């Protein structure tokens, strides 16, 4: 029941002893600590029948949420060791997170497993992983364009035209090909999340970062696909997907050095190959 700390040479992550959720993240180089919590949440896909002229439903092209349901983890497990420490948290029977900290690495790894998304309640669902910090971000967040140029995003705003926001969530989503970050210029801090695949992401509230990891919708959005996003997989229950995010918290003047260098290593990752041998090591070597 007591809070506990995952720590290495670079960072210290304090976790809630009751839930396994994050509480704060400290950059040990600058000594600056931010409050940060994480969870998984579900957006319910808007139903509708656009061919009848009803509401536009959520579908392959359209992300149109109809409310959210955040969930707290129901159970957690801590696994300690000299090389890696992990906290495994279950948010439901079909949504889990593993938080990992490796010795000597300046990032925290978050591995999510989601699915099969249940649809027996006849609701399409779009699942996000969220990080909520206390950074004052002034509606701003930053996403990349294929890992190259970083694009400044501002909530409810477009640079080149007067924007009338009608979708407070979807209207603020942006493609996140490799990274998304938020900054607090007064504190001089940056909170960066790198992903392992292109996803949609946003900062719906100041200090928050979210990435959509899995979707299962029940309606076509009438934009040409002609079917809902409902891949069932070989067992017809729905897909189970696993992926990773890499979270870094540091000063704004050092964060870019981390995410540029780390992204190169991550997205051009070494390739392991295996061979069976019955030779002794001495002979083999």
């Amino acid at each position, binding site marked *: 029941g007591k809070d506990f700390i995952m720590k290495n040479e670079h960072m210290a992550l304090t976790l809630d002893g009751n839930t396994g959720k994050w509480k704060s993240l400290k950059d040990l180089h600058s000594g600056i600590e931010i409050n940060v919590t994480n969870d998984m949440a579900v957006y319910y896909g808007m139903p509708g029948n656009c061919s009848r002229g009803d509401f536009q439903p959520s579908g392959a092209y359209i992300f149109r949420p109809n409310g959210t349901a955040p969930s707290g983890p129901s159970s957690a497990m801590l696994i300690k*060791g000299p090389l890696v420490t992990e906290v495994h948290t279950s948010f439901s029977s079909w949504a889990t997170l593993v938080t990992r900290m490796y010795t000597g690495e300046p990032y925290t790894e978050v591995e999510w*497993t989601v699915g099969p998304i249940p649809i027996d309640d006849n609701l399409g669902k779009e699942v996000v992983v969220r990080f909520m910090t206390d950074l004052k971000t002034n509606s701003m967040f930053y996403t990349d364009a294929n890992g190259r140029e970083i694009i400044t995003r501002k909530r409810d705003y477009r640079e080149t035209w007067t924007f009338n926001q009608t979708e407070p969530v979807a209207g603020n989503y942006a493609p996140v090909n490799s990274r998304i970050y938020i900054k607090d210029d007064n504190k001089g801090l940056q909170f960066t999340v790198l992903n392992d695949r292109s996803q949609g992401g946003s900062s719906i509230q100041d200090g928050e970062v979210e990435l959509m990891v899995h979707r299962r919708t029940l309606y076509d959005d009438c934009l040409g696909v002609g079917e809902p996003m409902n891949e069932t997989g070989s067992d017809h229950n729905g897909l189970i997907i*696993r992926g990773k995010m890499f979270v870094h918290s540091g000063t704004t003047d050092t964060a870019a050095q981390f995410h540029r260098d780390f992204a190169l290593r991550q997205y051009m990752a*070494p390739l392991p190959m*295996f061979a069976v041998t019955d030779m002794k*090591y001495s002979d083999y070597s």
Partner: protein
Amino acid sequence: TLNIQVLREAMGVVQHHDGVSGTEKQEVAYDYAMRLANGRTACQKVMNDAFAKLIQKGSEGFMGVAFCDLLNISACEVTQNNKQFVMVVYNPVGHTVSRWLRLPVIGEAYTVMGPDNSPVQTQIVPVTKRTMQIPERNGAIATNELVFKVSIPALGFSTYFIKMSNSKPTKEMQQSRMEKIQ
């Protein structure tokens, strides 16, 4: 060149906007996936041919390398079904890199020898319900993951020799301690 062409053409097809954004019909998604998988298999054959040339003559036992495409979901036929195997890690980046690897295994302790003939520190992490294999992928039987760090030279490869150990774990072979958080 013909083998590489298979993936090259598949990538060309998947650069259709439907493939990039995921707005294709499901049947088309299956077709894209099949094309990419075929291309990947063909490229793996190219890499195996290259290895066969690199390996010195006299290594008649060399049967080629296997690529564990499902390592991300803790499934790998070679690592979970053999007490001893060799891992070659290729680094495509132009400078030395290190990386943590997690190999799905069924044993409780392993000796890992690095490219410099010295033992590598490892940690066994249990596969729990939260890190379980994806059920629809058949053949995942690992109960543990063997975690260790590899270092690979620029545009080169490192070889690691991995063997299940029956003796008591040494200081290089660390187990994990589990605690339930209530």
